[in-house]
């Protein structure tokens, strides 16, 4: 028994190694550049794939060749990181941080298809590390020798990083820039160079993490998003920007997972979430983190949201009129696409509700869409609940989820909040994915039929239009009601809002609830439009779809998410039949962000500012 515990403990330490490496890299990059690098998991994945290819070629089968391959893979990944930094991120450091995030997600998509093209869709088994391919006997239990190597690697890397950051001029500059990068520039340091070198180190660590876990986990096309979720958890638990914190958190998570496997194998992801929830409630900034300055999504003051002008009302009326007569003129195919667009417009509007007026960025809004969808689908399949009731239950299920998740989330702000929402969404996803008996796992739930009266496509179209229209209009009304004012006041200045007696946290929580329930309505309708539901509906890409819709449309306009949803859904529908559609989608996202770093809505504002300046200077000169 003791032997088993000891060996399991050591296994946990070993699995903490690659978690620590990727989390440390993520943390360092965020510290200096303030970019949440979604593509960090992709760099990790590339580390694994490249190490695989190298071990096949470089003195295969020798210990020397293996370790050279691992280091070389990390180095190649570091260079890829530098290329990403120079070609893409360097151009958008001044853009709102969400656009930067979006661009890094574009990289995720591009890398996924690039890896698919280079290495193919088959999962690759990693080679055993030569010289470390047997097991040692510990108290009667066997422990792979390679695990011992992994256990040694983390503290060694931690020590080297400590030396790098405290004993070299570069490290001192990086620590200074983490605190105040503008001031480092005002002392004569070129930030561009510093950022690039930081990206090199961060990407190296990610690549190393992916490479060293190759003998244990192999390489496949899913590890990028799986590992990025785990890395977010480790960084948040350890405290943003703290490498020692990441080290401790990686061990904590590694150990919890190691022992959870013994007790209940399905609980590995849930245990990770529980640990994070407990840590964040006790220490909101992580184990060794410190409170960050209020980090509003927009750096400048948010533009005011105004009620629609008469002209805008007319435009809305025209749009609604068009949608109402659409079934008379459109083909079936167009109608089906429009149903999807209208449903996703509600989803995007609900995300906008907490992001724009609420100022809370959610990376995991698909959770509520998915909860609504699965809530309705499960009622229909297990209890034979009629469609009407299931559709009503969808927002309740999603709302309950939002109530629980939101309770934790509103205690945080900025990046911490965003990462926590992502973690919750991953939990919800993993429950659905792993609980095969109840949810059908990967196979999804099929054969969900509409009630006979709504079976006709046109009738269902009107049902969707009515439900989504009412829901979107209701959110709009809320934004211009005292409730909306209170939420926006809390976003703009928490301190002042608190001081005039607004319980900001409570209002944020309620906003979370509303957004979750609204997304649930969309999820329920979605199930009945498709007749089936799969775990994909609550996965990270679905959450990012929502972000893309909201951001492309403009965070601080009410109509933005609706048009964003329409444009994005249409684009996806156009390209999804192509083999490398992710590559095209990712490339499009990157291209849009590079071309319009202030967002499509931001262009007009920039032009307006320019005109005003011209005018002001002109008047001055005329005097």
């Amino acid at each position: 028994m003791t032997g088993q515990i000891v060996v399991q403990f050591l296994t946990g330490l070993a699995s903490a190694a690659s978690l620590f490496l990727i989390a440390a890299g993520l943390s360092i990059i965020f510290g200096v550049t303030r970019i949440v690098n979604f593509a960090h998991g992709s760099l990790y994945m590339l580390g694994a794939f490249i190490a695989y290819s190298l071990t096949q070629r470089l003195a295969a089968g020798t210990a020397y060749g293996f370790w050279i391959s691992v280091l070389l893979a990390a180095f190649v990944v570091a260079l890829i990181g530098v290329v990403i930094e120079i070609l893409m991120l360097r151009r958008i450091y001044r853009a709102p941080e969400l656009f930067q995030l979006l661009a890094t997600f574009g990289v995720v998509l591009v890398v996924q298809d690039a890896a698919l093209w280079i290495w193919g869709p088959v999962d690759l088994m990693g080679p055993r590390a030569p010289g470390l391919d047997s097991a040692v006997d510990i108290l009667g239990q066997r422990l792979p020798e390679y695990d011992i190597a992994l256990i040694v690697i983390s503290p060694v890397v931690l020590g080297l990083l400590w030396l790098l950051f405290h004993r070299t001029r570069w490290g001192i500059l990086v620590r200074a820039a983490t605190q105040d990068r503008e001031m480092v520039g005002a002392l004569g340091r070129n930030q561009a160079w510093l950022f690039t070198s930081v990206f090199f180190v961060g990407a190296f660590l990610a690549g190393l993490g992916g490479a060293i876990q190759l003998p244990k986990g192999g390489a496949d096309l899913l590890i990028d998003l799986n590992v990025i979720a785990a890395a977010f958890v480790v960084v948040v638990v350890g405290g943003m920007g703290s490498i020692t914190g990441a080290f401790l958190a990686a061990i904590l998570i590694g150990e919890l997972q190691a022992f959870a496997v013994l007790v209940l194998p399905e609980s590995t992801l849930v245990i990770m979430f529980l640990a994070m929830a407990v840590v964040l409630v006790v220490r909101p900034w992580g184990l060794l983190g410190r409170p960050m300055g209020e980090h509003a999504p927009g750096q400048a003051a948010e533009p005011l949201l105004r009620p629609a002008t008469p002209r805008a009302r007319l435009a809305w009326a025209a749009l609604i009129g068009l949608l109402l007569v659409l079934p008379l003129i459109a083909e079936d195919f167009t109608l089906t696409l429009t149903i999807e667009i209208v449903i996703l417009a509600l989803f995007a509007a609900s995300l906008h509700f907490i992001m724009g007026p609420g100022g809370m960025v959610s990376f995991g809004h698909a959770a509520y869409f998915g909860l609504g969808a699965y809530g309705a689908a499960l009622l229909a399949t297990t209890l034979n609940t009629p469609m009407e009731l299931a559709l009503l239950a969808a927002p309740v299920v999603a709302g309950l989820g939002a109530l629980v998740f939101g309770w934790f989330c509103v205690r945080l702000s900025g990046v911490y909040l965003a990462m926590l929402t992502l973690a919750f969404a991953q939990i919800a996803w993993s429950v659905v994915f792993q609980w095969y008996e109840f949810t059908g796992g990967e196979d999804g739930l099929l054969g969900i039929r509409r009630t006979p009266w709504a079976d006709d496509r046109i009738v269902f179209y009107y049902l969707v239009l009515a439900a989504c229209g009412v829901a979107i209009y209701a959110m709009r009304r809320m934004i211009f009601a005292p409730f909306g004012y209170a939420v926006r006041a809390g976003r703009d200045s928490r301190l002042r809002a608190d001081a005039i007696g607004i319980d900001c946290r409570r209002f944020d929580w309620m906003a979370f609830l509303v957004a979750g329930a609204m997304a649930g309505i969309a999820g329920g309708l979605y199930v009945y439009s498709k007749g089936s539901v799969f775990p994909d509906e609550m996965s990270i890409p679905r959450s990012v779809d929502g972000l893309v819709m909201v951001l492309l449309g403009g965070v601080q306009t009410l109509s933005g998410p609706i048009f964003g949803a329409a444009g994005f859904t249409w684009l996806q529908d156009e390209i999804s039949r192509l083999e490398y559609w992710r590559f095209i989608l990712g490339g499009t996202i990157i291209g849009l962000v590079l071309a319009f770093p202030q967002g499509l809505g931001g262009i007009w504002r920039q032009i307006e500012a320019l005109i005003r300046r011209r005018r002001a200077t002109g008047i001055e000169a005329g005097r």
Partner: protein
Amino acid sequence: MTGAAPMLEVAGISSFYGWARILFDLSLSVGRGEVAVLLGRNGAGKSTTLKSIVGLVRPSGGSVAFQGTEIAGMPPHRIVRMGLGYVPEERRIFTDLTVAENLEVGRQRPRADAPEWSVDKLFALFPNLAEMQGRPAGRMSGGEQQMLCVARTLMGNPSLILLDEPSEGLAPVIVDQMAATIGELKSRGLSILLSEQNLRFARMVSDRAYIIEKGRIRWQGSMDDLESDEAVKQQYLVV
């Protein structure tokens, strides 16, 4: 670079924050070895002027010449590397770094045309700092942080430094120390442009004064002229 050019020549710059215009055709100059002061009330545009010179705010229109070279529109790190040091109003010490590490961040190669500084020379100038080299800068008093902030900028071996309200929030005895330090820097050949609200402090250190109000220079002249002009003092400086 001509030897005859003034240390700093600002001609007709305007600066904006978004839509808001802060500076209006502002001009000033600092001669070699001179201490000039920019006096004005809160919100007059003093900090924005200094930030526009060092490149943290990009002036739209006008020219900024440092030792005869046009620097308007350059990124701050290039301007600073030419020998123009900047000490911000909020100090912006790296609180997580030790005193010695803060100085290291500011270090640059020596310059032929500017006094050369080393850690030891700075510790001689600021004896307090020598005693707390290993201490995290966040655990120092406000006065000590202000001294560290000046020392950090001097590590870049500048020939001109911009000091944004160096006396703000300091105890009177520390203000006097700061004045002595500025005198010492001047005697070593540094040119200095500072912004101030504190007339008593400005009197102790400066040769020449500019008075700024609502983003425009309203008055300029020697410190002595300002001293004798009660009306100007009354109009622009008395709160």
